[in-house]
């Protein structure tokens, strides 16, 4: 169907459109018009992706000079593939409607592990190994050495790509990872490097967050992307944590030991090279005296995305004399390393700010701030000069040098916490130095600065105003859309009491209480008796789940539940969990269904969808607060309070509620889907908690379902399930495809005149109606 969004002709590959999709596109269009950033929330299952894609592509076609590229960031490979499939559908629709083959190039990019077609390299199991092996075959100096020694191993795909691949651009079309691999095999080109090269001129790039947010990767892949791009972060409810993780550094004793080995290797290599090829070191030295001019020119001309690890001051100056020669730099690293080792030898927890750390390091080992700041850049230069093949081996020393640069560059927004042991095992010495970033805006700042529009979108972004605050940007649009439903297919219930009127809560004081645990058990038992097919239950933590399940076993509740359904449990082991998931789905397909016990913030709660019968009910046992005793969290909360005026409790509640919403949102993945959402904690009834749920869930919580007992909840659930079990015709939920019907269904359907008129207007523009009016 063709749509008119404020004068923009949008091709939409489906014959019908939901009102919320229309409003979503409208907001999106306004954001693009204003060349600003936007925060948009729309429930999952309402076609967020296709709305985004069709509008932005229409915009790109209408104003090819205003928006040149769409960068679509998603979280996981399956999600990336899903986006590409939608895109393919849209592109087919375009060529069908316009009759001409369009010259859009869209492609997905992932790591070497997912894209490599070299027979030996691609068979390796871990991403790091693949990267290292690939690097040892394709690094520039390795290839230079091959001129003199043709016996060295070679990746023929890369050679082929390097020889001809750059001259011929990738033909227009939509490529997912498999398409790229096929194309690579056909041509004999390396798909990974082809994709990395092609994203520069592609119209649409779909890849993972990390390619933009992780400074190390972004520097390699994304720094040359055009300024006039639209960046979309999908499923962005966790984006602040991604930012923080990408800037934080954790240093353990093992890292330091590996780093020590690295430094020794460096020293030996330097010795060797000095004897054989001293000119090379001299050349590097000369370059360093000149300063990092090249990088500076590139940044000034605005070719590159800024890199938070390479601050601007560095580029304008030459490397300080203290670390200019290779030996001195190795000595410097050694001193820094020994200093870190001595810091890790603490007996009690230390928390200090970056300035304190710098002062201490100057007093102890006479290291100034300036050489520290250049450390990361200097190490890269040295590694390049020494022509060390296996970069993966040097990850430890790279980490340390990044840490050195960060700690000396940012005096605010970071904290250093040294813990001699883990909280759970106070007798086992396992010292860790957490250099933790507390300000997510540091990592994402270059993205907001560089690209003209950044869209942050997800199914659960409530409360909307907190994201601009913690990411420190000014959005031009912020909107939350609800789901229009033909029947209320979601039923949120807040169970606050057990049948014996004991308050249900996972708060610290009552979590060991037998009555609470028993009531939770009863809730699950009763639900397992009435809910068909799958139930997913989320606990607040692994420890809590273990305790509860153990005591359910003792009380015989588990046995009773197992009369109704099979039970599967998520564990911290990824392989075990995926096995459990597989079996759970098998059990849902057959017989009486199953129960999956899992943990909020775990793997299941984030990426797995429980469509239709895989999740007919989600039970959230307790409020999933983070572990509040963690020092890193405390430091972050303090920082949020001081810098952004966000109070601790607000942030904690916000964080807990976004995870709760993620968990319960797993069950509803579309309008034909239906599911119970049971919040089993009396604290959910409070306005401050409830108000932080997404609008589309909040709307369906009425006063009657605020503080239910288990029995009452069962009654309501029974009623709801019986209603939902009635045969349900697609036509009634979604406007029909035939022209005449479409108009009036819209009008009758919602009953609201304004709304009806808008849809009417919409439908008019769709060509199918022309005949009818004439």
């Amino acid at each position: 169907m063709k749509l008119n969004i404020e004068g923009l002709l949008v091709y939409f590959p489906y014959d019908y459109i939901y009102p919320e999709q229309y409003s979503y596109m409208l907001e999106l269009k306004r954001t693009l018009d204003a060349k600003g950033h936007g925060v948009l929330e729309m429930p999952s299952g309402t076609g967020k992706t296709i709305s985004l894609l069709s509008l932005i592509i229409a915009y790109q076609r209408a104003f090819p000079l205003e928006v040149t590229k769409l960068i679509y960031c998603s979280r996981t490979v399956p999600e990336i593939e899903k986006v590409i499939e939608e895109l393919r559908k849209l592109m087919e629709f375009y060529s069908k409607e316009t009759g001409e083959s369009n010259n859009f190039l869209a492609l997905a990019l992932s790591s070497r592990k997912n894209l490599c077609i070299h027979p030996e390299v691609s068979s390796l199991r871990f991403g790091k190994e693949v990267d290292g092996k690939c690097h040892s075959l394709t690094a520039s100096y390795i290839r230079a050495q091959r001129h003199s020694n043709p016996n060295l191993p070679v990746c023929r795909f890369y050679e082929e790509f390097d020889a001809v691949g750059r001259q011929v651009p990738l033909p227009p079309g939509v490529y997912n990872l498999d398409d790229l691999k096929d194309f690579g095999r056909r041509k004999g080109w390396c798909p990974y490097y082809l994709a990395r090269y092609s994203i520069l001129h592609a119209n649409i790039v779909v890849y993972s967050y990390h390619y933009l947010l992780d400074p190390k990767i972004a520097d390699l892949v994304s720094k040359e992307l055009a300024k006039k791009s639209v960046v979309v972060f999908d499923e962005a409810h966790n984006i602040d944590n991604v930012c923080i993780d990408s800037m934080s550094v954790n240093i353990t004793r093992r890292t330091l030991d590996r780093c020590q080995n690295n430094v020794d290797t460096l020293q030996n290599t330097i010795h060797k090279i000095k004897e054989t090829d001293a000119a090379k070191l001299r050349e590097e030295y000369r370059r360093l005296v000149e300063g990092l001019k090249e990088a500076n020119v590139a940044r000034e001309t605005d070719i590159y995305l800024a890199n938070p690890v390479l601050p601007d001051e560095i580029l304008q100056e030459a490397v300080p004399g203290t670390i200019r020669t290779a030996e001195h730099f190795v000595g410097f690293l050694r001193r820094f390393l020994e200093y870190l080792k001595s810091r890790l030898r603490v007996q009690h927890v230390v928390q200090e700010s970056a300035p304190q750390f710098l002062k201490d390091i100057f007093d102890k080992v006479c290291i100034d701030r300036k050489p520290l700041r250049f450390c990361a850049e200097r190490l890269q230069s040295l590694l390049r000069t020494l022509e060390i093949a296996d970069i993966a081996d040097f990850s430890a020393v790279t980490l340390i040098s990044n840490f050195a640069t960060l700690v000396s560059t940012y005096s605010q927004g970071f904290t250093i916490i040294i813990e001699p042991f883990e909280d759970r095992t106070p007798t086992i010495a396992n010292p860790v130095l957490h250099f933790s970033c507390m300000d997510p805006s540091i990592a994402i700042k270059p993205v907001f600065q560089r690209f003209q529009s950044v869209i942050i979108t997800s199914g659960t972004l409530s409360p909307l105003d907190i994201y601009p605050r913690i990411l420190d940007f000014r959005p031009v649009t912020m909107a939350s859309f609800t789901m229009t439903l033909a029947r209320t297919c979601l039923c949120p219930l807040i169970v606050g009491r057990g049948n014996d009127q004991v308050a249900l809560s996972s708060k610290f004081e009552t979590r060991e209480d037998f009555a609470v645990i028993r009531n939770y058990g009863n809730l699950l038992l009763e639900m397992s008796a009435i809910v068909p097919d799958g139930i997913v239950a989320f606990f607040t933590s692994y420890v809590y789940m273990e305790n509860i399940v153990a005591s359910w076993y003792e009380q015989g509740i588990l046995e009773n539940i197992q009369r109704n359904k099979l039970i599967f449990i998520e564990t911290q082991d990824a392989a075990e969990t995926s096995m459990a998931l597989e079996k759970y789905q098998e059990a849902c397909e057959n017989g009486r269904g199953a129960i999956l016990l899992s943990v909020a913030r775990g793997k299941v709660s984030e990426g797995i969808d429980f469509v239709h019968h895989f999740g007919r009910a989600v039970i959230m046992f307790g409020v999933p607060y983070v572990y509040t005793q963690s020092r890193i969290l405390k430091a972050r909360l303090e920082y949020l309070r001081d810098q952004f005026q966000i109070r601790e409790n607000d942030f904690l509640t916000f964080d807990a509620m976004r995870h709760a919403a993620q968990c319960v949102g797993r069950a509803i993945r579309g309008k034909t889907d239906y599911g119970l959402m049971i919040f089993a904690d009396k604290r959910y009834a409070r306005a401050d908690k409830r108000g932080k749920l997404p609008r589309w869930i909040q709307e369906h919580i009425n006063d009657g379902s605020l503080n239910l007992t288990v029995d009452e909840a069962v009654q309501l659930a029974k009623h709801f399930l019986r209603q939902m079990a009635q045969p349900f015709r697609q036509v009634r939920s979604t406007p029909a495809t035939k022209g005449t019907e479409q108009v009036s269904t819209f009008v009758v359907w919602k009953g609201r005149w304004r709304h009806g008129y808008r849809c009417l207007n919409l439908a008019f523009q769709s060509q199918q109606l022309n005949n009818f009016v004439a």
Partner: protein
Amino acid sequence: MDDQGCPRCKTTKYRNPSLKLMVNVCGHTLCENCVEMLFVRGSGNCVQCDTPLRKSNFRVQLFEDPTVDKEVEIRKKVLKIYNKRDFDFPSLREYNDYLEQVEDIVYNLTNNIDVENTKLRMEQYQRENRDLIQRNKATLTREQEELEELLLLEQQGNEQRRLEVLQEEQRQLQAKRKNKQALLDELEQSQLPATILLAQHKVRAAQLETQIEQQKQTVKPTNLFSTGIHMRQTVSLMAVPKVEEVLYHYKPLQVKTYGPPVPELEQLGRLGFLNSPHSYSLLQRMSGLVSG
């Protein structure tokens, strides 16, 4: 760490956790007991390299690698003499060359390369630059000054925050107490029925809560001048970077319909838009279950 030990008596940290390793200028370790035993007279030779050592120069080993201890020791000594600052040089390049020279001296001394000559060079330098060294000794480098400043700021910020939180809590406590007292007074004196008073009290308490909430929200750190400059910060005289930003200009929308003109309101009924799409039979319509 546990496998570190004294090279002479072979005691290790593992066997004797209270073992204290000492290191002298030559960079070789000995444990405290061996030092006591060997250097009873106050001086002696190193067991490993035969360098004459003084007992008073023995330090507790800070780092795992004793050469680092040695290097740091030497570095501190060298830096006391070579303490020129970047503003003592006409260009950054020369300063960097100077730094490298210092680094060379430290490297030579640590690795026992050309020690005599290097020492001579140092002495000569010291003689030549006596005044400068004396002058620079008193001042900190610019970077260190910055650091000190930051630390001071941090301290003050912490203190201030603590006081603020304390005051805030006090105020809230008092307000709540006053509210409660007011309720008691009213219950005692007022003619109104108790339920109304209680309801009023409830409303007042809620208002108080919201007020407190609002106050919390509006609390702003007061370490900023109104111009946005931090108090007690050295003000740089650089021009403030101007933010060039095109303001969003709203243009009224012009709807391009790709079809016939949209019908007027009154036309809708006439053209049959409001009719139901379903054609119901007479029987159905008569039943009254459907309309239209």
